[in-house]
């Protein structure tokens, strides 16, 4: 079962988008035949046969927001371990955030990350370039050099920090128009969030932790939408987390702003009450918000005000988490749990169907990131980037059992619905039995 892209695979009876089951024949990195044509194809005779009865097949998932930590923090995650986690989570492409050491703010660093991803080969790794040198928010990085590099960067972000200077943000939005780039903004007004530890509200008042007010996110999104209108560019909002931000984005979209927005699985499921035990595994930036916010985010994702789900997968070594809350690093793992959380919060309640899941986790993130080989239809002639999902299964999350080098999952011990059975990248199995990766 040492699958490679040359070996043909016949997937029998998987249901694309949870609809009518059919057979899929993968060969040469493509879906070469579907339905009745698949089994009569001459390549089917020698193909590995996968019984996918009862399974759902979707285009491979695309994560627009991943932290792979390499270069710099290889103790927390590497391109290799993060790629394995991504494949196991059903992803065939991830966008790697530039807040590494050194910062991915030059063609050299983004090409290094791109090459590492290609060498590992479990998932396509697309580096995101920093907007400013060293993510310091002082002057623009060489955006065109990164765009023209082998890594072909189209998404730029200072994620972890906000491009808070209005003039710099305007220039960045303008500049990337030359190569159809997009600025992915971490919306956080820095002065309003000095020392902020968690969502500012009743829970922060009780716990005595410095508050991160919703307005600090909403004000930046509003400003950036107006700047985007003014210069006729494209804006992507990272990890949108508040009901107020939903209103701001909805209003901008209504008037025609070229803005897209992402929500993380943890903001769909978890609330600020989780901070009550001061366990820093629940510390994340932007912080977990209130139940009213999670409800608004789910509705916005269903309505299309929020375009996509992105993980903000943020591995942290144990010494950066097993410490006082205010000294702990913010962030949580997400790649292997994202699909299950979306099934739990969106699919099961009927807010999205499988078509919708494919849209928010594969097709639209691929489009925002400018990819052509991912998030494609499940049809003959398309790249064989697919994920097989058992919708009836459930599993119990254990940080130690995840492929990441870090274990900071906020879902430890939780039983989550849906399970990735196999992931195929260009017809080669990257996760699931026989993929050479712990399944």
């Amino acid at each position: 079962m040492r699958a490679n892209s040359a070996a043909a695979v016949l997937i029998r009876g998987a249901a694309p988008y949870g609809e009518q089951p059919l057979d899929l024949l993968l060969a040469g990195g493509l879906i070469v035949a579907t339905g009745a044509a698949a089994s009569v194809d001459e390549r089917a005779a020698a193909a590995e046969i996968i019984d996918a009865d009862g399974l759902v097949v979707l285009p491979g998932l695309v994560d627009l927001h991943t932290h792979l930590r390499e270069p710099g923090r290889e103790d927390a995650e590497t391109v290799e371990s993060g790629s394995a986690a991504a494949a196991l989570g059903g992803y065939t492409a991830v966008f790697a955030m530039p807040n590494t050491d050194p910062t991915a703010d030059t063609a050299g660093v983004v090409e290094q990350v791109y090459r590492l991803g290609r060498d590992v080969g479990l998932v396509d790794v697309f580096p995101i370039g920093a907007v400013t040198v060293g993510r310091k928010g002082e002057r623009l990085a060489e955006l065109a050099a990164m765009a023209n590099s082998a890594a072909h960067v189209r998404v730029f972000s200072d994620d972890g920090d906000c491009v808070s200077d209005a003039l710099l943000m305007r220039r960045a939005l303008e500049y990337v128009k030359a190569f159809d780039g997009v600025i992915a903004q971490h919306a956080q007004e820095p002065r309003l969030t000095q020392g902020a530890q968690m969502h500012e509200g009743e829970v922060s008042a009780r716990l005595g932790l410095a508050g991160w007010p919703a307005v600090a996110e909403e004000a930046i999104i509003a400003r950036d939408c107006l700047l985007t209108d003014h210069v006729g560019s494209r804006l992507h909002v990272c990890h949108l987390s508040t009901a107020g931000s939903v209103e701001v984005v909805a209003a901008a979209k209504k008037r025609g702003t070229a803005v897209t927005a992402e929500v993380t699985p943890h903001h769909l499921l978890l609330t600020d009450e989780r901070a009550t035990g001061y366990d820093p595994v629940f510390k994340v930036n932007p912080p977990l918000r209130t139940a009213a916010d999670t409800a608004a985010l789910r509705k916005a994702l269903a309505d299309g005000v929020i375009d996509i789900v992105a993980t903000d997968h943020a591995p942290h070594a144990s010494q950066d988490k097993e410490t006082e809350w205010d000294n702990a690093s913010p962030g949580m793992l997400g790649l292997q749990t994202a699909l299950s959380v979306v099934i739990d919060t969106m699919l099961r309640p009927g807010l999205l169907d499988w078509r919708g899941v494919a849209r928010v986790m594969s097709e639209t993130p691929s489009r925002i990131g400018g990819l052509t080989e991912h998030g494609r239809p499940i049809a003959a002639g398309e790249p064989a980037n697919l994920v097989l999902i058992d919708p009836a299964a459930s599993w119990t999350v254990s940080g130690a059992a995840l492929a990441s080098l870090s274990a900071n999952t906020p879902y430890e011990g939780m039983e989550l619905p849906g399970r990735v059975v196999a992931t195929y990248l260009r017809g080669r199995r990257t996760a699931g039995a026989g993929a050479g990766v712990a399944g």
Partner: protein
Amino acid sequence: MTTTVRQIEQGRAASGPTAPPTPAQTPDTAPIRLPRHLLSAGDLNRATAEHVLSTAERIEQAIAGREVRKLPTLRGRTVVNLFFEDSTRTRISFELAAKRLSADVITFSAKGSSVSKGESLKDTAWTLQAMGADAVVCRHSSSGAPQQLSAWVDGHVINAGDGTHEHPTQALLDAYTLRRHLGPLVGRRIVVVGDVLHSRVARSNVLLLSTLGAQLTLVAPPTLLPVGVQAWPVEVSYDLDAALVGADAVMMLRVQRERMSGAFFPTAREYSRSYGLDGRRRALIAPHGIVLHPGPMNRGMEITPQVADGAGSVIVEQVANGVTVRMAVLYLLLSGEIEMAGGTA
């Protein structure tokens, strides 16, 4: 050790007319137990809170008039004072409390955050665990650190002030002081004034005093009240004069001068004019009313020296009561084990 327990139990029986009345006595069938750790004043319900306060009264009576003010109750026990933040008065108070109960006391001053030393809080916890601490008194500049510590050690953890979260023994000593002067706190009107946003003393007092039935009014400039204060069982006012009229007690909170850099208020002078307790305002509270301050005071800022040192000021008494109340907390947290030890002896 059992003898000592009996001494204190007998003290309960002997607590005659001089002792303030204990309000709601709980049914004597169910022994009142403190939670394993004292992390928040919210961990105490009315019965347990009153049990701590009445135990403190009995301890005070047991010691009163003795030449040697020391009880053998915690002999052989180890109490670790783990202070990640400077606090001479709280540290000394706990140290004295533990020593008066004959415990072995180790003071571990780890100034600054554990991270800056390269040692994690967890490593520190494991060190204490290995040393066999029966109780850990933890002061930390980070909210929640004592609670995190409690997950990693077997001993009882007492929060001696964590960040801007809580300081439950301060609230207990305040309640003890208030009861001595005002009797039962049910329906008593207490005004808490100052930097509520950053005050662990305020958070613990809001929880404990409302549990004991007092009516609290918080007075502060709007910038020094937390967003979310609406959910607290208190009234909130920006008008100190109006709030003070007829109050049974006023508790002034320390205002740190560095708050000015955060633009919480324009100047110390303006703060003092609007929210400082001077002689004129002192006269607005009830004739039997008292003035509290957890210390250390900024004389001339939140309170004038005349008021701090004047009639009805119980600020020095608060310090003395702190030792007694902390003895009661240590005794009660560790007494379950003492009873067990006595039973098997």
